[in-house]
């Protein structure tokens, strides 16, 4: 059982890392960025490609991939979000245009086989691959009957540290204050001399970089990299997480991520893997219906 809780914490930290980026965009721009899961997938795919196809060591490959994902965030902003904002389109339009980008990203990877246009990025089509063993050292620790894998421990530490750093940046730095001001009231922020467009662009960069990193960690730990990991593994679960925690709330997303990890592991232990898959959506549905402000209430909500 303790081992299961450990697994919950570990998968929860990947959910949390993914959901923090998701919720950040919702909190600041008021749009749901459904291309976030495609960026998550591309984070894993780009790292894999740099390591396996281009022979880079893992660490530089991961750093490049995170930066590329950040740039993809800018692409999302400039292609799918900014033109709509210029026109004062309803927020639903942005949801649809980001779906369009997600379709494109997934299809490009899915169709990439040797000899095609994107074979430099991906060569395995719709198949699932994994990093070659030994890409990252993975010592196993035994601690009083518990088995802890080094990579999973590393992932836990990396995500917790990153989320703390993010929390610090948003609460105590100038950029963070500007970000919260824009989230609170776009118009007032403009009047105070904040460059709102620049804040939006940096939000997308930050959010997508985090999403890409979550993808890399997922690919490393779950050993499953395919064009569909974003769509099938985290897109809707990420939604469940940010709904659990209250949409737009970063502490909520972190708590929601760990909570979902825990719920899933408990459902798995108690009812088996078939129920585990549906439990996130049942939770999502129930929370939206019974408590749309999120489990932790409005108090966390305003604290981006």
């Amino acid at each position: 059982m303790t081992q299961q809780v450990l697994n919950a914490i570990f998968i929860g930290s990947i959910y949390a890392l993914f959901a923090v980026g998701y919720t950040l965009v919702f909190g600041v721009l008021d749009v749901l960025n459904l291309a976030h899961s495609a960026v998550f997938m591309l984070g894993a795919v780009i790292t894999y490609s740099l390591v396996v196809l281009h022979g880079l060591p893992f660490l530089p490959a991961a750093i490049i991939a995170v930066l590329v994902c950040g740039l993809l965030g800018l692409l999302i902003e400039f292609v799918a979000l900014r033109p709509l904002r210029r026109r004062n389109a309803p927020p639903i339009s942005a949801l649809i245009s980001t779906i369009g980008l997600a379709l494109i990203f997934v299809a490009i990877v899915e169709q990439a086989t040797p000899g095609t246009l994107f074979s430099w990025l991906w060569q395995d089509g719709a198949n699932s691959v994994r990093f070659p063993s030994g890409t990252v050292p993975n010592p196993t620790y035994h601690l009083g009957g518990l088995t802890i894998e080094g990579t999973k421990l590393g992932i836990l530490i990396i995500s917790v540290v990153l989320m703390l750093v993010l929390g610090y940046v948003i609460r105590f730095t100038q950029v963070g204050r500007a970000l919260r001001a824009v989230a609170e009231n776009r118009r007032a922020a403009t009047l105070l001399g904040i460059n709102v467009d620049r804040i939006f662009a940096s939000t997308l960069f930050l959010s997508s970089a985090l999403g890409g990193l979550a993808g890399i960690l997922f690919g490393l730990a779950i050993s499953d990299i395919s064009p569909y990991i974003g769509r099938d593994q985290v897109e809707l679960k990420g939604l469940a997480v940010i709904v659990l925690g209250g949409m737009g709330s970063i502490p909520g997303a972190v708590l929601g991520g760990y909570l979902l990890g825990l719920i899933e592991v408990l459902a798995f232990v108690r009812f088996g893997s078939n129920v585990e898959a549906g439990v996130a959506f049942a939770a999502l549905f129930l929370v939206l219906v019974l408590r749309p402000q999120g489990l932790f209430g409005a108090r966390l909500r305003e604290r981006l």
Partner: protein
Amino acid sequence: MDFFIELFTNPVGFYNQHELLIAQIGINAILAIAIFVTFYSGQLTLANAGFMAIGAYTTVIMSLYLPTPLPVNMLVGALLAGLVSVIVGLPVLRLRGVFLAIATIGFVEALRLGVILNVPITGEGQGLHNPTADPLGGIVPILISLPILAYLVWRLTKTRLGQAWSAIREDELAASSNGINVPLYKMIAFIVSAVLAGYAGALETHINFFVDPTEYGITRTIQILTFAVVGGTTNVFGPIVGAVFLTALPEIVRQFAAYRDVVNGVILILVIIFRPQGIVGRGGLAIIRPRWWIRWRARERPAAAH
């Protein structure tokens, strides 16, 4: 190009060769009508793939275990989808905008992963073999249903009910202060949409030999949404045009068939940015109206008034 040449020079041969495509176009058009009804009442609900699943599974399970004739099974499937929509709609329709969209996606996936994959009678992950499948005969009811349903929904939008939906879409608060029972009319739209989607699901089992749970997930939902957005939701013909266009497109440009999702994504983004009212929106069928045309029209009008 061959596609069009054949369509006009040899319609019978074209029909025989593309029967399955035509059937799929018909089903997608009915699905597009289904999502149009909720769009028309101002709600973005993404539950249609779930209602489709209910219609499809009910039809096939009844065909497998009951002696009832197929049309009855299909009707029961559609009505059961409507019944479930009442149960789902009561709590969910209180939500608005993005939250409504998320909750309905949650319903679709909870139904698929939580119920269909766990109840033995649905064949769980294996899916169900459909004993009554008849790919060629199945086209007939589709081609008959589509114009009838399109006409009915088009008439519906012209009635008081349709006007109430328009009013809610334009301004919910104003509608309710004018005495329109907003929750009731939203619910009616949701039920009509669910029955249509359930019926489309039932029709589809008729041309497929197999009911497969992976068919009724988020991908399907997004596909249906794309029809409505690209076609436009000003009137019922927009989503139908969207469905026909996007379903036939991979066949028309075969060389891009593998990249159909890239093409779909690009079209979706272009439409939402440059023509938010869809292909068939206010302003007629024109996809692009060049600036000189608009200027010319503007100059022409006062002259005509003299």
